């Protein structure tokens, strides 16, 4: 009896030790390089600081006041928001349409699938550089339009403040629609064919069967896709930095660009940190709200089995 309980305590102790040892490396890395810096951003944001001198000039919420007032956060946020709206209105439905098309069997299907997903593996920076070359005034895109008689459509794609965000949206979509399409294709393939067939036999037309059977069943996948798209659009940086640097006249400055410029170009680490915190809060609010109001039904089952 005592031997048994001693063995049990020994077991428990070795179990605790195992948990601690196995968890320690990941936790340490995560705390040091992810959680700690985010907490530090909140701390720095309360100071006027150039990043070099000691952190002494405490100014409270002044940085936030400036950012939300004249500091251009609102402009940057608006630019991110435009990408969010366009992604939801155009990119996601477009990806869904292509997923539906690719969900049929036809020769050469795998080639399309492989090709549509390819841009996802290319880096945003390099994609941006290629498009910058294509879109320069008088370069390939302009000459192509002119040569097919659409010369009147030629624009200063990346240099005109009025359309630069639209151009960026097209480039972003070029890179990411395949990713969403792959997600939705997997979702479609998880829906048993019998359900749509049953609806057809019951007298629904194809459109009705899609609208009332397939689409609702695809709901969870679409909602995940929408979520990833929104979070991605809020954090846009690489692509913008290499194509426009946030210009012209801040017309394509996103939240992350504004933060980067404040921190590294204007040596305003405190102010930049305030922008980082705002970006963090926007992402967090969106994520929590989406989780609370939209994803909840989907994850109710999934996450509880996850958590056991």
């Amino acid at each position, binding site marked *: 009896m005592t031997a048994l309980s001693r063995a049990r305590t020994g077991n428990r102790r070795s179990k605790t030790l195992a948990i601690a040892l196995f968890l320690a*490396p990941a936790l340490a890395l995560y705390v040091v390089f992810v959680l700690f810096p985010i907490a530090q951003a909140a701390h720095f944001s309360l100071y006027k600081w150039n990043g070099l001198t000691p952190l002494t000039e405490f100014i409270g919420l002044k940085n936030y006041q400036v950012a939300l007032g004249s500091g251009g956060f609102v402009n940057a946020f608006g630019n991110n928001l435009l990408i969010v709206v366009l992604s939801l209105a155009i990119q996601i439905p477009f990806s869904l349409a292509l997923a539906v098309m690719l969900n049929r069997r036809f020769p050469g299907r795998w080639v399309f699938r492989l090709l549509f997903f390819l841009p996802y*593996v290319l880096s945003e920076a390099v994609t941006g550089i290629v498009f910058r070359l294509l879109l320069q005034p008088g370069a390939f895109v302009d000459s192509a339009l002119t040569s097919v008689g659409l010369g009147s459509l030629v624009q200063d794609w990346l240099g005109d403040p009025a359309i630069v965000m639209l151009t960026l949206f097209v480039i972003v979509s070029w890179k990411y629609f395949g990713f969403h399409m792959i997600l939705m294709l997997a979702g479609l393939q998880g829906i048993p064919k019998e359900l749509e067939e049953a609806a057809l036999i019951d007298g629904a037309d194809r459109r009705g069967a899609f609208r009332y059977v397939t689409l609702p069943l695809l709901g969870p996948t679409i909602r995940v896709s929408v979520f990833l798209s929104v979070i991605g659009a809020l954090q846009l940086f*690489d692509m913008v930095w290499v194509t426009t640097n946030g210009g012209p006249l801040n017309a394509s400055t996103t939240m992350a660009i504004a933060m980067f410029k404040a921190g590294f170009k204007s040596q305003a680490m405190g102010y930049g940190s305030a922008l980082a915190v705002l*970006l963090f809060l926007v*992402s967090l609010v969106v994520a929590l709200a989406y989780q609370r109001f939209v994803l909840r039904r989907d994850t109710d089952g999934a996450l509880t089995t996850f958590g056991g």
Partner: protein
Amino acid sequence: MATSTSTSAPGTGADIGAATGARSRAAARRISVIGVTSFVVMLVVATAILVPIGYSILGGFKTNGQLVANPVHVIPDPWVFDNYREVLVGSFAPTFWREFLNSLIVAVVAVGLTVLFASLAAFVFARFAFRGREALFTLFVFGLLFPSAVAILPLFILVKQVGLSGNLLGVALPQAAFALPLSIVILRPFFRAIPAELEDAARIDGCSSFGFFWRVLLPLARPALATVSVLAVVGTWNAFLLPLVVLNGADQWTLPLGVMNFSTQYSSDHAKVLAFTVVSLIPAIAFYAVAERQLVGGLTSGAVKG
């Protein structure tokens, strides 16, 4: 159709069969119209994907004169091999290969750390019951909500303070840290699905926790590990902001930084920029060709199942 005839009375079954037969013939005609339309749409999209890539590849075989004179004339005339030669073996070769090597070092270190640490942690989250487990797991899930951009300014300060500024390790460590959440979230259900009987058997045979993890769990979870590695490779290989902030000399740059720098330094020499860019894309495309299955499988299993 087979199910409807077999479950209903023969007469009605035939009626339904005839009616849907007629309808499905009409439907078949419509489908083929839809089929043709969607095929055309897909061809257009495929062209839109291929044109920028093809333009860059072919542009690298041109002179600047050719590029400027007639940008739409895509086939080089004559074909010029100097640009690619210079990047691969000529005067730009040291730059390119150094940047390639830097990218490779960062990727190997970051992905190695991610996979090792994430599988250890996922093992604990999957197969140990203890208080605070879900809270700790949620802490990691929380990391999925934002990218390194949010933490980049303090990260810069931190990396400088610990003396890793201008060191590839200063990129690899934070990169691994930011790849942990997704990896743990993907690995946990895999580890959990491995039957408890195996663990009992291993213990009876005298396996410690680590022994079970190392000799039984990891080999069985090889597909999941492949998925996690592939995702981490893509993320690390393409990372831009973190290396931009941490690395401060041309000899440390990774490929994305190198390409950007090359494109500004030789901004008037489009042909060379295109050649350099294309060559820098080859590793990513080659990797995609090899690991497409794991990549797609990983993304879809991670996202579709929640």
